């Protein structure tokens, strides 16, 4: 199964790109509307890019009343990424999605590098969301965690149905002429090809530590990259930064993946309404 990474595609401005995935993952929604961070928000590096968007979104109420119906019209299964600044805020978002049949899974963004974090642990946030909804919950973890396998076990115990691995790494880029930070907020989330080994290690560790299905993401640029994530233990693969440079990447990567048919993948349970991506 091929997904977009949250925050890397707007299905409403690029419906054809969205339809080239098996499901669409939304940009993170929070209980209240957020304007996001001051620009400059993006900067290229030699081996990737930084972003500092800051969870710009219309708030979960407007999302449910105005955005979700438009997304539903696209006819794609929808994964909604949720965020918050406390476990209770995450739970508010999760509960708001109940009864929306087009929503097939919830991704809990526990690892945005561009905003302040909730005080509770990942497991406490997952538990709060578990109490708020029966929808499948995917916990999106940070590659900064000192022991991501332990975090994976903790969110599994708290009721997560899957893991999304990984979010971006914190990075800093200076302007080559002025030696000033390029981003207004200075530190941003580092993504792109350089992230792949980090993602592979996280997927590999969590595959061995938990029985949860894993959506692997981080620096996937080719079918080979996707096959490596699957070989490391991912059940599905998400594309992020590559979409900024190549909106045709989903079809291309699917095609390239055919060459890696022997790679074993663990399917995501059918109860999540999406057929597992078959490699051949």
């Amino acid at each position, binding site marked *: 199964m091929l997904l977009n990474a949250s925050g890397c595609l707007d299905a409403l401005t690029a419906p054809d790109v969205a339809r080239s995935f098996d499901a669409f993952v939304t940009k993170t929604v929070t209980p209240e509307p957020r*304007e*996001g961070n001051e620009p400059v928000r993006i900067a290229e590096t030699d081996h990737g890019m930084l972003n500092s968007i800051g969870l710009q979104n219309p708030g979960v109420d407007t999302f449910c009343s105005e955005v979700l119906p438009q997304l539903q019209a696209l006819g794609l299964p929808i994964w909604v990424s949720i965020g918050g600044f406390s476990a209770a805020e995450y739970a508010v978002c999760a509960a708001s999605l109940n009864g929306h049949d087009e929503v097939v899974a919830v991704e809990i963004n526990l690892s945005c590098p561009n905003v302040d974090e909730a005080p509770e642990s990942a497991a406490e946030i997952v538990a709060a969301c578990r109490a708020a909804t029966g929808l499948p919950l995917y916990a999106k973890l940070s590659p900064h965690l000192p022991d991501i396998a332990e975090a994976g076990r903790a969110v599994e115990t708290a009721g997560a149905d899957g893991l999304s691995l990984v979010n971006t790494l914190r990075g800093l880029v200076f302007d080559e002429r002025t030696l000033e930070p390029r981003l207004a907020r200075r530190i941003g989330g580092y993504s792109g090809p350089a992230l792949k080994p980090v993602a592979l290690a996280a997927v590999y560790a969590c595959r061995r530590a938990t029985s949860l299905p894993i959506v692997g993401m981080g620096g996937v640029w080719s079918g080979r990259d996707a096959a490596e994530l699957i070989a490391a233990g991912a059940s599905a693969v998400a594309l992020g930064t590559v979409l900024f440079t190549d909106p045709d990447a989903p079809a291309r990567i699917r095609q390239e993946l055919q060459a890696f048919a022997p790679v074993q993948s663990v399917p995501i349970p059918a109860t999540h309404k999406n057929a597992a991506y078959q490699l051949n």
Partner: protein
Amino acid sequence: MLNRERRRVVGSEQVGPYTLLRVDQGGLEPGIPGQFFMLEPPGRLLPRPMSLCIAPRRELGFLFEPIGPGTRALASLGRGDELGVFGPLGNGFRLDVRRPLLVGGGIGVAPFPYLSDRLGRPPSLLGFRSGFHAEAAELVPNAEVVVEPMLVTEALPGGYDVLACGPEPMLEALRALAPHAQLAWEAPMACGYGACYGCVVELGGRYKRLCVEGPVLAA
């Protein structure tokens, strides 16, 4: 539908400090003046947004200043080289204006040759940092040129429908002087099609994506 193709470079010329890169048009439409294309520099991760400068028969031409790794990589392309071109994207200038005046600063003159052509060669007022930079004015018909320390805002005549592109301080100044102007803005951009939320500008207290709402916006 997203139109993205591998195109071949048919020429690359220096215009003052700027580079005019011409590619064969292939199946790409030139679009409306002020719309932009994402050009994929060889060896770089992200494409670079460039408005269309000239649209001679079967060609698309882009004017830019090679000042960073992406624009330097684009400037290094020569005849026969290939690059990815994606567009046209965004919203261009409204062309239903009665008395157009093109007002540009520096590399902001880039969309004006094509715009001038489509508007029947209206007058233009162009400001540059130096005489060397002002060589780009040769691409724009009916141009009056000012060079710093003189600013275009000091030479701006009244009674025109202003269509402008240039540095942010110039556009901000024009906003006050010509409240009905159409202003083409610029921002660092990753994707060009609304995916990344990187290119926002503040509009009425809200952050809007320039690639979707702009780059040409009402003052």
